[in-house]
């Protein structure tokens, strides 16, 4: 077995560790590696029960429109089409992503009712004997739209007079316990701006990013002789999928069984429970196995991506490099529905002001609705784009002060015992040490005082 192995430097926190292990800390071959590279691993699509039906969606061709009518006549005439599901067939036609942890309202129909709010929103599900027939049927569904004005920019969506994206919320933002955003209030940031030698404010933004798993999102649902449904899924969370699907179907939880656990990449894209409920309805209505799997277009343009964000950071900085105040205004583009974005926005708030001890912090993190594909979880949820903004900001501050960018970070880095902006006491910190080691690796010389700094002491501060 050959493998890449980064060395471990055990010196920095040697006093805090024990190393009396036989298996922990050793290289053990990943248990599924051989199966993956030889093609022997079984994924959900390797389940091929007899009589399998295929489900394909007819999707919205508009960004924002009222549905005046849906004509299924031509689609039903396609040979092989067995059934076409509309919103009326779904027992509880609203997704329930965060309902079980008390976050509401539910705001997204499984199949569109009277409106579509983004391009690609599912309107009806065509179930057919073959994938080709399902695609042909989906292409022959006729929808009569009445276009509505759409909004795509987060700040335009919050402006007065913007088109309302999602009636379940009634406003173009998610409401956090009566507040229009998730807030962090720590110290007095305005006072810090008044005291600072310098005030720097810059803007950063990103565009949506696809999780791009090798295996696209999907499931195969097989009705069982005892009346239960066995769901083979590539979900990232089996019980979460089970619970949400049961709520939508209106069946007891123990009527469902999820079989999964071997997935070809998720990166957060398989946390939303989107494909299983409608596939289960189709299986129940036909009493036959049903497969619903996204093609690559659906995975990229319809399945929820990493949200675009727009972030303004305003810093109060002293001549010696100490940052004494940081004000962050962050907009997360949730798209047309909330999914997990309210949670990701809270995570973004908790991450501010980055791994630094700043005595005055103010953050407003907005979860904003626009007429685009709903965003949701992705690797680094709520943090990745924030880090782009924060660490670009640190570089700009250092350059504006003609200061070494690593020294600026070391000076402001959080240490054990510091109170973070969300009022949790920092422990187990190690930012100082990773910066020192990176400097050492690339031959970036640090003065003695900075080399002596530590996460466990106040030395050098």
């Amino acid at each position, binding site marked *: 077995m050959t493998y890449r192995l980064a060395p471990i430097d055990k010196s920095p926190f040697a006093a805090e560790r024990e190393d009396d292990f036989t298996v922990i800390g050793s290289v053990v071959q990943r248990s599924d590696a051989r199966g993956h590279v030889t093609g022997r691993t079984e994924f959900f699509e390797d389940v091929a029960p007899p009589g399998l039906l295929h489900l394909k969606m007819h999707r919205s061709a508009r960004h924002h429109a009222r549905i005046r009518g849906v004509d299924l006549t031509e689609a039903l005439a396609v040979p092989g089409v067995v059934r076409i599901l509309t919103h009326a067939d779904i027992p509880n036609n609203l997704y329930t992503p965060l309902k079980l942890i008390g976050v509401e309202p539910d705001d997204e129909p499984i199949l569109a009712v009277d409106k579509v709010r983004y391009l690609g929103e599912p309107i009806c599900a065509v179930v057919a004997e073959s994938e080709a027939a399902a695609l042909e049927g989906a292409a022959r569904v006729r929808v009569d739209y009445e276009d509505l004005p759409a909004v795509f920019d987060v700040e335009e969506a919050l402006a007065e007079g913007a088109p309302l994206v999602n009636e379940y919320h009634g406003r173009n933002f998610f409401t956090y316990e009566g507040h229009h955003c998730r807030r962090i209030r720590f110290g007095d940031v305005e006072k810090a701006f008044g005291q600072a030698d310098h005030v720097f404010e810059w803007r950063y933004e990103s565009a949506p*990013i*696809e999780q791009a798993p090798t295996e696209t999102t999907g499931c195969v649902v097989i009705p069982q002789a005892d009346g239960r449904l066995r769901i083979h899924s590539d979900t990232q969370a089996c019980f979460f999928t089970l619970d949400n699907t049961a709520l939508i179907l209106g069946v007891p939880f123990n009527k469902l069984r999820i079989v999964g656990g071997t997935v070809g990449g998720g990166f957060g894209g398989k946390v939303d429970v989107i494909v299983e409920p409608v596939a289960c309805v189709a299986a129940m209505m036909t009493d036959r196995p049903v497969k619903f799997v996204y093609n*690559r277009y659906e995975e990229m343009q319809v399945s929820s991506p990493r949200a675009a964000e727009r972030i303004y950071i305003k810093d109060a900085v002293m001549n010696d490099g100490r940052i004494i105040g940081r004000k962050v205004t962050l907009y997360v583009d949730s798209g047309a529905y909330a999914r997990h974005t309210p949670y990701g926005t809270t995570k973004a708030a908790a991450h501010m002001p980055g791994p630094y001890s700043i005595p005055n912090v103010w953050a407003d993190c907005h979860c904003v609705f626009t007429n685009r594909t709903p965003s949701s979880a992705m690797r680094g949820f709520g943090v990745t784009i924030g880090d782009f903004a924060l*660490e670009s900001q640190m570089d700009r501050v250092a350059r504006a002060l003609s200061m070494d960018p690593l020294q600026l970070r070391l000076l402001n880095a959080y240490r054990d015992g510091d109170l973070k902006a969300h009022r949790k006491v920092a422990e187990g910190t190690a930012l100082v040490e*990773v910066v020192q080691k990176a400097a050492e690796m690339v031959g970036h010389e640090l003065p003695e005082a900075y080399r002596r700094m530590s996460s466990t002491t106040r030395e050098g501060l």
Partner: protein
Amino acid sequence: MAKLRGRGYASVNYPTGMNLGGDPSQALIHSTTTGTFVITLSSVDLGQGIKTIAAQCAAETLGLPIENVLVDTADTDTGPHCMGTFASRGTHRVGNAVIMAAAEARGVMLEVAAEELEVDAADLETDGTGLIKLKGSDEKSIHITDLALAAHFKHGRTISGRGIFLKEPSTPVPETGEMDPDSCQAHACTAAFVEVDDETGVVEVLELYNVYEIGRALNPAMATQQVEGGAWMGLSHALFETTEPYYPRRDHGPRDFAEYLMPGPADIPVQHSLFLERPAGNGPYGAKGIGEMTANAPIPAIANAVFDACGVRLTAMPFTPERVLRGLDALRGNA
């Protein structure tokens, strides 16, 4: 026209777990009659290696070779509850649950061994090869294969254990944002070395240096894969990827991998990685989550390196040749 080189840094932290609604995972473990321990979970392996990590945690706790451990996941009819694989929680939550289950099973294993060997259970130890033996003695010992048979057929005991890890819910205070959202924080610093072609606007990342503090690398090869694979993803986010190239406009969205650009083999930089370990008190053998954070630091490190190379401050991702060229034009007064 020239190829301009620059260096940029970024330092970050990342939370392990995120519990707004409470964050539990369970593990069950039992020995078959042949001394193989089966860990039963409902956790999902996305390719990140939770099955391997669970087996390592169980083997270490039981004091048995990893070959004696099997992982059975994920079937909601048989596996106990797991919240899922997200929020860099798998190793931390599932690892802790497995350790708790394995510790209970180890207790039973030692009790039965004590009966077999007619000694006190407190005087027994495991040697990691499959033997349970009297401390300091090579004469009084029993192999797990024999012990498991005896437990079932002679002593009527199940060698089994139950484990759960729960991070309790934390509700943010709406006015101030006070909350306890995570279990610990991992840390990283990246240095990126880039070359910018000032004629084409193409950015090439030449080298990435990554230092990660992750509590403990339970499996250092898999941790290395996370760092290097994540750095690739970060580079890809920085330079190539978006589903909406003209955001906030919705047009020109890619539909497949021919249109959705990602780095190819020739775009992959030389990577130098190093781990530091500051074991987390609440982590399994001190481990923190590394699953998500590895894509983060490379992005601003590359942005800062581009500025160092050519003076263009990129404030919108991704850093396409068009954006670099527009930045260069602005610097030259040609905007």
